[in-house]
């Protein structure tokens, strides 16, 4: 029994919530989960199939690995091809294909790419290899970015000069806004990301409830958390309300974690960012402030040659990320694109929608 995990997997309680959902749910309700960890938990626990027919869960752009644009991966690979460079990254990024290759393929050819558990491990690698330039491929949402910011602060404090970040950081609320502005999907609610919100709090979603009249519930990750959050969303839909509610109260405070946000803002400032499938969204990214320019790989290696970006033929990851199609509606899904031979990032990443559907949602393929 793992405290704060096991108790949220109780079958009887789950059935109880499902009964309450069936009882109150009348209106059509399309809810988007904007977090890859939610996508996996929903698929793994069979929640998609347990809900009444009028309630549909749609996966959105919630996997940082998946939304990283090819051009950013191509840039990382270009830096990797420079002499005396060690690239460090989280394991999730290794197999994600850019236009022509991936970090994993380059490592197989002899490039020095190292997977780390934490940015602090990357700093250690820099300390131990003073003759090399250690570049960390910074990908992630607000959950991860404070840890990357902290590594820069620490490198500066400890005078580690061979450490830098190639950043493709993104923030979630502007992407939710962009999806609503595109107006392609008929949405009735957002299942908001619990661990992004653990850092940023609940306030950054308020404009969605207020200006777009879309209910938002910040959800935890265990089956009972997700079911209860769906119940709360349905309740809002049926009552005709749109508010930001927090289901995941044991981790999410209205102001999030101000210390982590402070560290993030000390190092990063808002910038535009390119999202796979959506394109450039204003203010949806983060760039390293001038004060920390010495740790910004984009400025340390300004002359890298990046080949023209190329998209994978037939891959509809972009449409999957925008919630336009379900993964199984892509012609490549399960045929030429599988977790062992992935074409697009949504099948590569363990938290990608395609990988989650492929592994767990066998029934929806028929």
């Amino acid at each position, binding site marked *: 029994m793992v405290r704060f995990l096991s108790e949220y997997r109780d079958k009887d309680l789950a059935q109880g919530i499902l009964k309450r959902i069936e009882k109150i749910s009348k209106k059509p309700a399309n809810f988007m989960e904007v977090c890859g960890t939610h996508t996996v938990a929903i698929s793994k626990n069979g929640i998609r199939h347990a809900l009444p027919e009028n309630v549909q869960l749609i996966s959105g752009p919630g996997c940082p690995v998946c939304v990283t644009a090819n051009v950013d991966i191509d840039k990382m690979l270009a830096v990797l091809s420079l002499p005396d460079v060690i690239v460090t990254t989280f394991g999730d990024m290794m197999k994600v294909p850019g236009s022509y290759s991936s970090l994993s393929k380059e490592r197989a050819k002899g490039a020095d790419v190292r997977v780390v558990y934490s940015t602090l491990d990357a700093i250690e690698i820099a300390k131990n290899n003073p003759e090399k330039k250690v570049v960390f491929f910074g990908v992630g949402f607000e959950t991860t970015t404070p840890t990357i910011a902290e590594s820069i602060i620490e490198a500066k404090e400890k005078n580690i000069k061979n450490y830098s970040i190639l950043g493709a950081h993104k923030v979630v609320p502007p992407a939710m806004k962009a999806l609503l502005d595109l107006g392609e999907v008929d949405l009735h609610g957002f299942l908001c990301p619990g661990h*992004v919100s653990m850092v940023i709090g609940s306030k950054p979603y308020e404009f969605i409830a207020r200006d777009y009249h879309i209910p938002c519930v910040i959800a935890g990750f265990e089956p009972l958390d997700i079911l209860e959050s769906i119940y709360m969303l349905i309740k809002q839909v049926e009552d005709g309300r749109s508010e930001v509610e927090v289901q995941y109260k044991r981790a999410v405070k209205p102001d999030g*974690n101000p210390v982590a946000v402070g560290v993030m803002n000390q190092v990063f400032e808002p910038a535009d960012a390119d999202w796979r499938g959506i394109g450039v969204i204003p203010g949806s990214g983060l760039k390293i402030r001038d004060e920390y320019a010495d740790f910004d790989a984009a400025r340390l290696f300004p002359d890298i040659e990046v080949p023209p970006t190329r998209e994978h033929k037939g891959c509809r990851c972009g449409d999957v990320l925008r919630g336009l199609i379900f993964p199984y509606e892509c012609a490549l899904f399960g045929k030429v694109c599988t977790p062992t031979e992935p074409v697009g990032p949504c099948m590569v990443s363990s938290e990608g929608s395609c990988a989650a559907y492929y592994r767990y949602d066998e029934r929806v393929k028929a």
Partner: protein
Amino acid sequence: MCLSVPGKVVEKKGLAADVDVGGTIRKISLKFVPEAKVGEYVLVHTGFAMQIVDEEEANEMMKLLKELTDGPVS
């Protein structure tokens, strides 16, 4: 990628802590939750504790769920 798992702080030296995550003791930074105490649960993400688990809220949710499940469906 934003996966964070609960772990119990078993030892604390400044901002460095030993945290029991599912039976494995990990070295975790308390930079973002310096107030975390030994015995408390924190949510661990890539080597950092990102938030302290609020036990009161956790118990409250379980209590509510049990009441709602045992009671009449309304």
